[in-house]
């Protein structure tokens, strides 16, 4: 199969789908042109992420990566959340096909963007955000096409 069982599980039964009303931070990355948009909402209490939700427009692995990323950081501190790498997302999903690796990057970046939003709104600084540029483009698709 194209995807692992883990990916399919998170795609078919995504955790933490939805919005948080009055979220403390919202991050959105991707664009419609490329066919992936990920939006992550976080609720923060002290330095802890007490709630996280996502909405994603994108392929199966984009949805699964969003789901897994929210699960991984739920209840974590902001510093812990900032330490999340796309590699961890991939591992948690049991692997992603090479052309889908960018989905895991998007998830990492969407989360960073949400924390950045929270930090900006609250004039906070986090070590994990050093050098973070919210306008960078994180797309790295390979170009491969097949049609029939």
């Amino acid at each position, binding site marked *: 199969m194209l995807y692992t069982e883990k990916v*399919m599980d998170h795609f078919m039964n995504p955790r933490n789908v939805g919005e948080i009303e009055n979220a403390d931070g919202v991050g959105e990355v991707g664009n*419609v042109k*490329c066919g992936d*948009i990920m939006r992550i909402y976080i609720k923060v209490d002290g330095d802890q992420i007490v709630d996280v939700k996502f909405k*994603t*427009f994108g392929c199966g692995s984009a949805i699964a990566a969003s789901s897994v990323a929210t699960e991984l950081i739920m209840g974590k501190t902001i510093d812990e959340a900032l330490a999340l790498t796309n590699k961890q997302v991939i591992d948690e999903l049991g692997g992603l096909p090479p052309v889908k690796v960018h989905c895991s990057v998007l998830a990492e970046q969407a989360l960073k963007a949400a924390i950045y939003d929270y930090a900006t709104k609250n004039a906070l600084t986090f070590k994990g955000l050093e050098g973070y540029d919210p306008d960078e483009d994180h797309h790295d698709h390979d170009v*491969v096409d097949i049609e*029939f």
Partner: protein
Amino acid sequence: MKQIYLDYSATTPVKREVIDTMLPFFTEVYGNASSIHSFGQEAKTVLEQSRKSIAETINATPDTFYFTGGGSESDNWALKGVMRANRKKGNHLITSKIEHHGILHTCTALEKEGFEVTYLDVDAEGMISLEALEAAITDQTVLISIMFINNEIGTMQPVKAIGEIAHKHGVLFHTDAVQAYGNVKIDVNAMNIDLMSVSGHKIYGPKGIGGLYIKKGIRIQNIIEGGAQERNRRAGTENIPGIVGFAKAAVMADEALESHREKLIYLRDKLANGIMATIPYAKYNGHPTERHPGNVNICFEFIEGEALLLSLNAKGIAGSSGSACTSGSLDPSHVLLAIGLPHEIAHGSLRLSIGDFTTEEDVDYTIESLKEIVQKLRLMSPLYDKVLKEGK
């Protein structure tokens, strides 16, 4: 779980009758058709019978039909072969923006060899303009290659009129009929076709076998050189089981063409109408009437095609998508962009293609499932917020 195959435009199952025709040629009449012993001569005989059967279905003589390894090889051969062999005449080729990659990527390769290619636009329904076509012809134009039926959106071009324009200007006309053959009646003479690509696996025949019709007298170079098979034009030991199976499938398709079309059109319209009636924010792509009898192509706003396909697959339904995400490419299908769809809509496309084994229940179940799936994915989509909040 019940499996519902709605991807006949990608490939078809091989019909029982076709396999039964092929089987003896694997183990009994297995000779090399170029050998003079009985094993070989028997193979040679069925080879030429198969060629004749297929030629008849397109109103051609057997000596104009050449077997290849598939539709892509035929496309490559037609374009490279004709352009390279006619350099003295000119270096210009005209095609369209919605061709299969077998044509488009061949054009790119030809451009690298120094040929010039005009890519014609299509309108919102996928039709080329005959005026634009005629206007594009120069004294350098050697060949026009326009596909008969588009593989994604099903639009059927006015092939006969294209051929007429080509011939009026002394230009050759190739058509990629991989999706058309077996689904519409083709008469290469009446339709002014000089070269035509076809493929076995789209008409319930085997994979790895195709053909190229080449009208007599056309200058064409080989792309596969070697032995003298196919009258010195396409080397390689003849794939007799494949050829026999292709011919059987072609004859079956030709004989049942009318009932096949009627059935497909009925189910296609039922499916398309059912979806359009129950799912909002959807766009039916392609031409309303001039289209493949089994092709349904619809874009669903706010969601992405691969997610749609995976969800359908989880319900046992096999469809296809022009979505970029299925392929890892950044852009959605060149065909959907060529008909003017914005990226975000083009990303949400679904192709369901109906075939001889599709049932009315399959169609009903698909409409039902699709409705649920689209709704679920939309609720997950940040793009759908607007609609939810503002009622759009």
